[in-house]
């Protein structure tokens, strides 16, 4: 193939980076946004009152009352307690009637708005918002992109090996192409450990989906039996004959018992299997905010509060805990706001590496290939994959805000808006000259970002109620809008870097 190791690596990095870069940018962008999935759902649900500091005991009582009144015959209940990130109480019931509701954690009033909220971005990040049980294409595309990211990271070190020699070199003013390359290197090198870790853990997390035939060979019950042993999950799925009616104690009784084992006030959510029957089982799950652990402590009790199953992380084997520790690096549920901001920004740096890399690809070849059909296509797809993905993401928020609460299939409309806008961005990029397309799409993203907080004037309400979570989202939109405006401005100026005074090179 290629003559030397470096040349083959360059080939791999360049072309693999180009093709998968288009996918990767979207995966990295939505993944970064999804870090704040809970906060965004809260922001997208104005019906949840601002400034709530819900009391866990009272919320649980409200959830329990609601389920007893509305789903007395269902065989599986779930109550998710409100958090400071998303202060709504969630109740879900399944089997013999199925439903899910968000409630005001203090009054118990139903929140009627149906929305995917921030978890939409989680879905796009995971499998391009496809149903991976029905059609795993989207899921495997993301997995391929993740592997390509690992490959690009390693081959990138080989290709850009000058980064070791020029470790402290950043030349924003020498030439546009060099500046983009340096930006690519700066973002890539600084966050390299983070990016490699995220790509690696992203693939590692779903090992049982990648090796689908391994578990059924060892476990007669297949994946679910394997997972039950591996991480004690999914017990709630085990369904037996429903027993005779028999009263269960108030949920607080079980929660207190569980919290005596894993810490007071640490309950995140609980399941009740067969409520109000002799065979009722209550499973209480601990939160994972201050532990770097993917698996959570979970206690299952029978109707009388006798512990029948428990998983306490500290009692598990070192290997189990190591797996749990590493897996949790990807799903950032620990560390609070500080770590989430870190992840958000470092994730955006990953998106920036990808975007800068895509631009370098065209900047390097513009002289030789300008006017050729394939180059035109690459340029157009670049614009749509980067700027178009940004527009589509912000358009999702606009569609969420503008779709009436009572619209039919309400939660689908913003999702469709996302895809339609992305497709429109591709068409626009194909019709316009590359530079204009960049400028217009970046400028549109900027406008959408700047406008989003002001839709329905909600930013003023957030300010008036000192609702800091929502204000932070508003402020991030504004900051993002300014960044996009700056980017549009810079790209608008013809070869902006060349017009700046030459750097005085020592």
């Amino acid at each position: 193939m290629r003559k030397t190791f470096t040349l083959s690596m360059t080939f791999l990095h360049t072309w693999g980076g180009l093709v998968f870069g288009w996918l990767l940018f979207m995966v990295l962008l939505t993944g970064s946004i999804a870090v704040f999935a809970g906060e965004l759902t809260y922001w997208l649900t104005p019906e949840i009152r601002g400034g709530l500091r819900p009391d866990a005991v009272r919320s649980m009582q409200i959830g329990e009352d609601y389920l007893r009144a509305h789903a007395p015959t269902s065989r599986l209940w779930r109550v998710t307690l409100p958090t400071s990130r998303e202060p709504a109480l969630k109740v879900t019931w399944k089997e013999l009637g199925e439903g899910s509701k968000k409630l005001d954690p203090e009054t118990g009033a139903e929140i009627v708005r149906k929305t995917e909220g921030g978890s939409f971005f989680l879905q796009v990040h995971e499998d391009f918002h496809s149903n991976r049980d029905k059609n795993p294409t989207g899921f495997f595309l993301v997995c391929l992109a993740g592997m390509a990211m690992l490959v690009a990271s390693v081959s990138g070190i080989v290709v850009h090996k000058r980064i070791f020699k020029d470790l402290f070199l950043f030349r924003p003013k020498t030439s546009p192409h060099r500046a983009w390359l340096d930006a690519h290197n700066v973002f890539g090198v600084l966050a390299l450990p983070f990016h490699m870790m995220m790509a690696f853990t992203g693939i590692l997390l779903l090992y049982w989906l990648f090796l689908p035939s391994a578990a059924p060979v060892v476990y007669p019950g297949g994946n679910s039996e394997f997972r039950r042993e591996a991480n004690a999950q999914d017990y709630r799925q085990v369904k037996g004959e429903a027993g005779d009616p028999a009263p269960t104690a108030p949920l607080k009784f079980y929660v207190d018992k569980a919290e005596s084992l894993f810490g007071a006030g640490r309950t995140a959510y609980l399941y009740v299997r067969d409520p109000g029957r002799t065979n009722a089982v209550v499973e209480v799950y601990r939160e994972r905010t201050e532990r770097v652990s993917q698996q959570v402590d979970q206690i299952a009790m029978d109707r009388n509060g006798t512990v029948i199953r428990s998983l306490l992380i500290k009692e598990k084997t070192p290997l189990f805990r190591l797996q749990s520790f590493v897996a949790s690096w990807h799903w950032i549920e620990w560390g609070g706001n500080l770590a989430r901001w870190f992840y958000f920004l470092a994730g955006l740096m990953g998106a920036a590496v990808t975007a800068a890399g895509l631009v370098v690809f065209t900047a390097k070849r513009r002289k030789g290939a300008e006017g050729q059909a394939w180059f035109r296509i690459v340029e157009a797809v670049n614009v749509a994959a980067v700027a178009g993905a940004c527009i589509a993401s912000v358009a999702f928020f606009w569609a969420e805000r503008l779709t009436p609460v009572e619209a039919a299939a309400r939660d689908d409309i913003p999702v469709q808006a996302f895809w339609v806008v992305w497709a429109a961005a591709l068409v626009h990029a194909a019709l316009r000259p590359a530079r204009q397309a960049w400028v217009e799409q970046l400028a549109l993203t900027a406008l959408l970002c700047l406008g989003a907080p002001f839709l329905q004037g909600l930013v003023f309400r957030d300010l008036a109620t000192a609702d800091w979570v929502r204000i932070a989202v508003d402020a991030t939109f504004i900051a993002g809008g300014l960044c996009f405006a700056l980017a549009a401005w810079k790209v608008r100026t013809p070869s902006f870097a060349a017009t700046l005074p030459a750097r005085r090179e020592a």
Partner: protein
Amino acid sequence: MGVALSCLLTFASLVLFALAMRRHHRQAFGRDPAPRAVLAYRLAATVLIVLAPAPWMLERGPYMGFVTWMFCGVPLVGLAAVALFTALAARRSEVETEVEA
């Protein structure tokens, strides 16, 4: 406090790594570094970079400290330093150009 100390240690370590390079040593001192000095710079830099996460980890606990340092702290502190020094250098060169003009 521990966070700041970790950042400073990292920065000091990277300065030493830079000084071990001919080009940067010349920029700083106007002459090439002696081979022995290169070794000394690198050794000191390595010791500092290994020690750097310790204050951070002491403050935030070993697990949380390790994870936040490795995957979040280093890249973002680095980016902030790059942005800051690039901006400072740009400003200084502008000022110098004005003075010369």
